[in-house]
Structures are given as structure tokens and as C-alpha cells.
């Protein structure tokens, strides 16, 4: 087993089990912490894929900002472990789990079936240069400039909207 393989297996086990924990743990705080763990794992996976810039962003945005937001909200709500964390209903529960499992199986099946046609067999080992961040930056500010700007506007709107929502009493259900 070479280091690469080891790293991959290790990271995937960590990420998947943290992901499972997000879904399975009944206490929202633990779930949030597990999510943070998953984020970190994903960031590490990005590193193995040579996407250093993205790995950094992932850590800063997700594991940093978003997770803090989640945890803050949770703390604001002061939630305990839930007695009924999972939705009820035998039939619908079965259907949900079944459909999710089917979906997973199908996606994996699809990947296996199409692996030959995806990128051809002789995959280049490492194509992306180490200084991928530079390429990314160039691309982002030239070809995808409009998308970038649009995202900026979106974030602006979201910021305003979130504030407005949080400030309003009773939100959309307010009775005037």
C-alpha cells in the first residue's frame, strides 16, 4: 500500500464516518461538530487532489464561517438531544431509506458502468499543476468574471435578506 492509497482510505473513512455521525447523532451540537469534522476531511481530500486553494477556502468558509454560524444558531436555540430525532412512519421511513439506498446503489452502479467512457482508460496521473491557484484566479477573473460578479451580488442580497428575515418578528408567519 502506497502512501497515496493510504491517505485516501484514511480520509475517506474519516469523512464518511463523520458524515454518518451528522445524520445519526441525535444531539444537534454533536451533529454540527461532526459536520465540521466532515468539512475538514473534505478539505483534506481536496489537498490529495491538488486543489490547495479550494482546500483552504473549504476550511475557511465551511469549517470556519458556516459552521460557526450553525453552532451559534444552535446555541441560540439551546437545543437538547431530541427524543424523536427521526421522522416517524414505518412505511415512509422504509421508503425513504429504501430510496436513498437505491439511489446510492444506482449512482455507484452508474459510475462503474460508465467508468470506461468517463475519461478513457489512460488517465493522466497528475495534470493539474501545483500552482493551480494561479490558473484558478486567472480563469475566475477572466472567463467567469460575470459569474463571479453575479455571485457577489447574490451574497449581498443574501446578507440583506438574512438580516431582514432575522429582524422581522415572526417572519413569514407574522400576523399584522
Amino acid at each position, binding site marked *: 500500500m502506497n502512501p497515496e492509497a493510504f491517505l485516501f482510505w484514511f480520509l475517506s473513512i474519516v469523512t464518511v464516518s463523520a458524515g454518518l455521525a451528522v445524520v445519526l447523532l441525535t444531539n444537534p451540537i454533536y451533529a454540527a461538530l461532526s459536520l465540521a469534522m466532515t468539512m475538514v476531511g473534505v478539505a483534506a481530500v481536496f489537498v490529495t487532489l491538488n486543489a490547495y486553494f479550494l482546500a483552504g477556502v473549504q476550511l475557511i468558509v465551511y469549517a470556519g464561517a458556516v459552521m460557526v454560524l450553525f453552532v451559534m444558531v444552535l446555541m441560540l436555540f439551546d437545543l437538547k438531544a431530541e427524543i424523536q430525532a427521526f421522522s416517524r412512519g414505518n412505511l415512509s421511513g422504509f421508503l425513504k431509506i429504501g430510496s*436513498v439506498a437505491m*439511489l446510492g446503489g444506482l449512482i455507484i452502479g452508474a459510475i462503474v458502468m460508465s467508468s470506461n467512457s468517463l475519461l478513457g482508460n489512460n488517465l493522466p496521473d497528475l495534470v493539474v499543476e501545483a500552482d493551480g491557484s494561479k490558473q484558478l484566479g486567472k480563469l475566475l477573473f477572466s472567463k467567469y468574471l460575470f459569474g463571479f460578479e453575479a455571485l457577489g451580488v447574490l451574497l449581498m442580497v443574501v446578507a440583506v435578506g438574512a438580516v431582514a428575515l432575522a429582524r422581522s418578528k415572526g417572519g413569514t408567519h407574522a400576523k399584522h
Partner: protein
Amino acid sequence: MSHQLLISTLILSPLIGFLINGLRYKRHSANVAGGVATAAAAISFLSAILIFMELLAMPKEGRQIAVNFFEWMTVASLKINMGFLVDPLNVIMILIITGVGSLIHLFSVSYMHHDEGAAKYFAYLNLFLFNMLVLVLGDNLLVMFVGWEGVGLCSYLLIGFWFKDSDKAAAGMKAFVTNRVGDAAFLLGMFLLFVSFGTLNFQEINNMVPADPTFSWLSPLTLGTLFLFIGATGKSAQIPLYVWLPDAMAGPTPVSALIHAATMVTAGVYMIIRLNPLFLHTPNTMLVIAIIGGLTAVMAASIGLTQWDIKKVLAYSTVSQLGYMFLAVGVGAFTAGLFHLMTHAFFKALMFLGSGSVIHAMHEEQDIRKMGGLKKHMPITHFTFLIGWLAIIGMPPFSGFFSKDEILWLSFHSPLGHPALWALGAVGAVMTAFYMTRLMALTFWGKSRVPQDVHPHESPALMTIPLIVLAILSAFAGWLGVPHVIGAALGHLPNILAEFLSLNIKPIPNLAEANVTTEIILMSVSVGFALISAALAYHMYVRNPELPGKFTEKVKGLHNFVYNKYFVDEAYEGSIIQPLVQTSKSIWFYVDVNFIDKATYWISDIIKGGGSLVRSLQNGNLQTYAMYVAIGLVMTLTFILVR
């Protein structure tokens, strides 16, 4: 005067009378209304006489007046003219109709004097005359049908004239509906004839009839004539559709005289005579007609033996006499049929009017058990009634004798006849003699059984004059159609009627030379038996009034059966009317409401059920929706992969 104008006057003057009386129907003066109506009828009668003279003035072969007012219906090959044709056959009819009609109008003026609906009554009566004239004069089957239904309608209105009595209204309805059954068959007969000949014009049909008779039951012409005959049984009250006529006596008595004795009910006979070449072409139908006629004659007469209502007796008598007419036309003796139609119109109108006079005198009492001995109170009525009685029982030399004898003889002698038919006719004649004598005896003769508070009196002149005129006609009209054998015996008296009608009526085919001896024997037998039976009736009801009671006591079952008119009404009620109403109700309830309508509910229920099923999917739960997305993804992916 032009023919068009003459015929218009003839037909339209009763219509105008109807309109005048109809528009002022709220005025209750019977005299004015009756005056107008009678004048209208009289004008009509005058024009009928003028037309008759006009015809006589014509050369014998060309005796006909055709008038076409306008084209009524023209569709494809169907071309119906509002056309009228006068020829020797129907000129006799219009004379009877307008003549007897005028007399009855006159009679009614007095009879309906106290009725508040007099104007309405006279309006209806005039309308009836109009329709009857249209029926008789129409030059094609459809115009005849106009009158045919029209007279039925007037009959309906007049039978139900006193509509406040539910039974009388019901009798009117019964008459109309029974007639409608006949009319439906008449329509079918018309269709068959139209399909066969391509025309409904009488002359064209009669000219187109194939020379050789058809013996198939299913040939269109046999079926057509049979259907026409069923139509005739409705209008002319023959088995099986005769049931309405006795009930029709609910109407005012002059109406019974005019419509239900003299004119309307003979329309069926007239129609068959009108189409005589066609009927001769279908001997099967002729046989049916003769049998039905003979049976009706006997059956109605037998019911007449037992009835207590003066008008009911006369009604059954009418049915029976109509049976004779059908017997006559059934054996091909069309002239005799028309002859009897004419004499019957006179003496039966006379007797009905006489009974009207009696009823008037008795203050609306119709039960002959409460009469008797009226002879001395009402001499004129009695005398005229007596003549009617002599005529109907076939006493020579009164009119009924000639016509009835002619029928009986031809039913025996004609190649289409049969001794059995003669026997039916003879039995009917014997019964007629009995019940008519019984009627005379119970009404006019013997001891008075009149209740104390009723004081019968002779009717006013307005009522007796028509009686007298009709009595004269009843007495002497027979000489118009003297049978060959008697004519020969009395020195070559011609049969005026037969000669006059020869243009219209085909002679009976293959008629053998008459055997004088046989004819005289048969004549004597029927007259003799009739006399014996009349004498018997006189004996039973005048000499020994307790005898009939004893006799009926002995044959109680049979008497009941006959007295209740063989339970035909009940049988129709039970087998047709009630089942029809019950079936209709169950069809409405079970089929219409609970099946056809419910079936649409089932469809809407399915849709509604489907809707609520789908609605339950949309339960508002975000996660369920997400699950649908997942399931959708699964399905899409499966589809892509499997394909």
C-alpha cells in the same frame, strides 16, 4: 258559383262559426251561440246541397269536383296538397254530416240552454263539423288524417265537456288515447301505401292497385290495409279498440248523437269504402274486417242486452251496428256498407236525440229502471223513437230493414262472405231486436217507475222538430237502396244508391247471379227471428216485468259476465295500463335515477377517489416531498441505466 268557393263555404263556414263562438265564449247566451253555430252548420248544409245538385248536373262519368287550395307539404317525392275532392261517395257523406249535423245543432240550442258553457259547446260542435268535412272531402290520406285526428280531438273535448267531473275528463282522455292507438296504425298504413305507391292520393292509389288480388299476409299492401283497418277500429269502435265508445257517453247527448253515432264513428267505414279497390286487392284483410265486424256486432249487441243506462244501450247498439258496416265492407258489399252507414246515421241520431229528449225530461236521469210509461208524457218523442226502433230492428219497410238485409244477404252470397258470417249477422240482428225492444219497453211502455219528484214533460219544439225530420228520414231513406229482389218484385224499382255510387265503388268480383229463393228465405228467417225476439222482449218487459229478474237470477254468472262488458276494460287496465304505469315508474326509479344517473356518479367517484389519493401524497411535509425527489431520481437513473 265556382266550385272553389262552394267547397270553401262548405268547409269553412263551421270553422268561422267555431271562431266566432270561440272568441266570445265567455258570454253565456246559449241562444246566440247556438244561433251562430246552427247558421254555420246550415250554410254548410246548403252548400252541400248545391254541390250535390252540381254533381247531378254533370255527366255520369265525370261526376267529380276537385279543388286544390294549396300545396301543404312538398318534400322530395312526397307531395301533399290541401286538396278536396267531391264525388258521389262523399257527397252522400257531406249531406249526412251537414244535414244531421244541422239538426243536431238545432236540437242542442234547446238542450244546452241552461249550460253555462254553451258557447264553448257550440264552438266545439262547429269545429267537429269542420274536421269531419275535411276528413270526408280530403283527396288524399293525409288530409283525411287531418280530419281523422281533428274529429278525435273534438270528440275528446266534447266527451270531457263537463270537465269538472274527473270521470268525464277521464273518458275523454280514454277516447283520445284509444283513438291514438288506431291513429298510429293509420300512420303506419299510410307509410306502407306511400312506399308501395309513391302517393297518398286516393284516386292515384285506386288507379294503381294491381288487378290481381294478393294472398300473401306479409305483402306491403296487405299489411298496409290491415294497419289502416286497425286505424278504423280505433275510430269506429271495433274490437279490440271499441272500449272508448261506451265511456264516451259522458258527453252531452247531442254530441253522442252527432259524433258517436251518426258521423265520426263511421269514418273508418268511409275510409275503407274510399279505398275499396285497394281493399278488394287484399282479400286477407277483407276476411279480417268481416270477422271483426261480425264479432263486434254480436258482442256489442250481447252487452247491450244487459245495460241499464239508456245511453249505454244505444252506445253498444252503435258499436254493434258499426260491426254490421264492417261486416258489409269486409265481404265487399261497399254500397251496402255505405247504405247502412246512412240509414244508421238517421235512425241512431234520431234515437240518441230521442234519448236526449228523455234525459232532458227526466232531469238528467239516464237509468231506464227509473223510467217507464213515458209514452203518455212525451208523445212526439215516443213516436219518433218508435220509428227509430222499427228501423233498427229491421222491420220492413223502414230504412234499417233494407240496409241490414242487404248486408246479411251479401255476407252470405258474396264470394268473400261465408254462411258463418251471415249467422253472426243474424244473431246480432236477433239480439238487436231484443235489446231495442227492451229499451222501448222500459222507457216508454209499461208502468211508470219515475220517481215522485220528477215530472217528465214533452220537450220544446226546437228539440222535437229535429226528431220529426230524422224520423221521416229513418222511415223512408231505405227506398234509396232497394235490394234487387224486392225491387224486382215491386216492379223494377232501381237501386238508386248503387247506381249513383257505381263510379266510386268497384263491384264485388266474381259475384254469382242472385238466387231469388235463397235470398227471400234468408230475409224471412232474419226478419222472422228478429220479430220473435222483439215479441219475446215485449212479453218479458211489458207483460211480465218480473220475468227478466227471474231469468237473470238463473244465469247469474253469465249475466254478470256480460253485464260487466266481459271485463274487457278491467283486462285492459290490468294487462296494459297498470303494467305500463308500473313499468314506467320502475324505469324512472331504477333505470333513470338509480342506474343511468348513478353511473355518472360512479365515474365522478372514481375521479374523486383518484384525486384524494393523489392529494394524500401532498401532505405538506417537506421530507416527503424530498422523498418524491429521491424516488424520481431513482426512477430516472434506472430508466437511463436499463436502457
